[in-house]
């Protein structure tokens, strides 16, 4: 795929500077959008086939069309940059190297959805990146692209505000309803749905939540058209995507390429293969919550939502974690379960208690006191968390355990006799 030219993270020096971004056509796409009817903007995004890049791969244009237009209450947009799913480190690249693309995307989405204000939610640990984004937002305000001044700049009636909200270290805040509660300043327990955010969101008002990378695709779609976009990558999940490849590879990093790439090509060619040419034992294709794949089932697997669903996994955040043949899977699962136990918000009993029980059993296995029936016990606890919680974090905690036991029972039993 050497002919692919990145568009989200193009190779342009200092693109994070507003003057450089302007020189490359920046802030012309919001101008173009303002010349269209808001519904036509939504129509183009729908037509492009853009799907959310934060985990669920939900069609963006469809999500946008759920927003009411009667204007009884203000509409809001939240941009999810919580980026806390283990194995995910892509949105950070946009904050650092192309923040104005995201800001322009917010303005376009803001116009299409008639929003009053947008909140860019950035995880607290990204303090430096929060500062970068705050600077970019301030520069965009100063140039009259955001806020009241945009009326004059663009000769339009529309205006919206953009604010940065810094988190403080909670994985759960990447869940959209938890994120809204976090912005509201209350304990960020996920909300029961329905009602969905498009009806009752931030401060009870209609709200759309989109991932940072999703929003960054929007100006490109407006600039180049829906046809251009839908011809990149996988037919049912098109577009450029930021793959984050980590673990046992020679060249870990974030790579912008079309969706639907072969997983083997990404690992061996793009990321330089496995150190020492070792065999691969396991790959988690989309961040630690997604069902893991065996090394011997990777041939022909493509990285898009539909292909991964077919093989029993999911695209998630496209954070690919590669583990070689010497990896201790019991230890990996213990660490993953430790993560979900620490990050469980504690609202729902199955997740709060279940993650703790699983962790205790894993420690028994690590101590060499495990038996094969413990794997059945773990599987049973995981199954009882799955689907029984308010938010998807219950599934996120259950899936790695459940699917690893189903797919790697032989390995895990062999490790029992450690």
């Amino acid at each position, binding site marked *: 795929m050497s002919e692919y030219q990145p568009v989200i993270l193009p190779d342009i020096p200092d693109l994070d500077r507003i003057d450089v971004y302007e020189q490359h056509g920046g802030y012309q796409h919001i101008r173009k959008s303002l010349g269209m009817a808001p519904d036509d903007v939504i129509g183009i995004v729908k037509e492009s086939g853009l799907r959310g890049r934060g985990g669920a791969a939900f069609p963006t244009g469809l999500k946008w069309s759920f927003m009411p237009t009667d204007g009884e209450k203000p509409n809001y947009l939240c941009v999810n940059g919580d980026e*806390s799913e283990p194995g995910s480190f892509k*949105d950070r690249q946009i904050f650092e190297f192309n923040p104005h693309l995201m800001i322009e995307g917010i303005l376009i989405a803001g116009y299409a959805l008639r929003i009053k204000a947008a909140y860019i939610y950035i995880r607290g640990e990204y303090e430096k990146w929060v500062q970068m984004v705050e600077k970019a937002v301030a520069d965009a305000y100063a140039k009259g692209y955001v806020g009241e001044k945009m009326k004059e700049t663009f000769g339009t009636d529309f205006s919206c505000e953009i604010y940065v909200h810094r988190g403080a*270290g909670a994985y759960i805040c990447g869940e959209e309803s938890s994120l809204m509660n976090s*912005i509201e*300043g209350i304990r960020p327990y996920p909300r029961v749905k329905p009602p969905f955010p498009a009806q009752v969101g931030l401060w009870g008002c209609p709200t759309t939540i989109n991932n940072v990378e999703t929003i960054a695709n929007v100006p490109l779609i407006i600039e180049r058209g829906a046809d251009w976009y839908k011809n990149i990558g996988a037919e049912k999940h098109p577009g450029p995507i930021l793959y*984050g490849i980590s*673990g046992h590879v020679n060249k870990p990093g974030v790579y912008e390429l079309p969706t639907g790439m072969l997983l083997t090509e990404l690992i061996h060619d793009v990321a330089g293969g496995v150190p020492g040419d070792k065999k691969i034992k396991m790959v988690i294709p989309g961040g*630690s919550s997604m069902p893991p794949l065996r090394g011997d089932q990777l041939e022909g697997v493509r990285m898009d939502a539909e292909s991964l669903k077919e093989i029993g996994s999911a695209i998630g955040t496209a954070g690919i974690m590669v583990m070689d043949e010497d990896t201790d899977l019991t230890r990996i699962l213990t660490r993953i379960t430790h993560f979900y136990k620490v990050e469980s918000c504690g609202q729902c009993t199955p997740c709060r208690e279940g993650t703790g029980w699983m962790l205790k059993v894993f420690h028994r296995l690590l101590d060499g006191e495990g038996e094969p029936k413990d794997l059945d016990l773990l599987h049973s606890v995981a199954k009882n968390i799955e689907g029984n919680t308010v938010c998807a974090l219950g599934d996120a905690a259950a899936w790695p355990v459940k699917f690893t036991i189903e797919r790697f029972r032989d390995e895990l039993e062999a490790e029992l006799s450690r």
Partner: protein
Amino acid sequence: MFSEEELKQVEELKSHYPTNLSAVMGVLHMYQDKYGHISDEGITYVANLLEVPEENVLGVVTFYEMYHQHKTGKYKLQVCTNVSCMLRGSDMVLQTIKDKIGIGIGEMTDDGLFSVHEAECLGSCGTAPMMSVNKDYHENLTPETINELIDALKAKG
């Protein structure tokens, strides 16, 4: 407790939201940056400043990993031990720190200069293993770079 300049920042934060509750997180960050941790006094101060109930502020402080109710080291060494870092040597990072300053996860040096914390994935998987020291990320760590970093922090004091 906040200076006039800081109070201006608080007003700016408040203006971002329709309710003062939403400014609690930002003001807590400011408070912790200034005092190192958030004491009971701090919770009362922030609540009064924003005219919100103390229990709301406490509820926010206790929920999030990054707000500390107790003193931490001047330099918080937060070592990511999640999967991508584990696969690339987070054990080595913890061991090197232990060998160098004698403390492990959850501990602080007697002089209060360093504390070590286990961090969940900090979004630095492509540059693993890593740790953050206060707000700075230190990536692609090796025993040499860790030792150099700690020496430099000690020299700074």
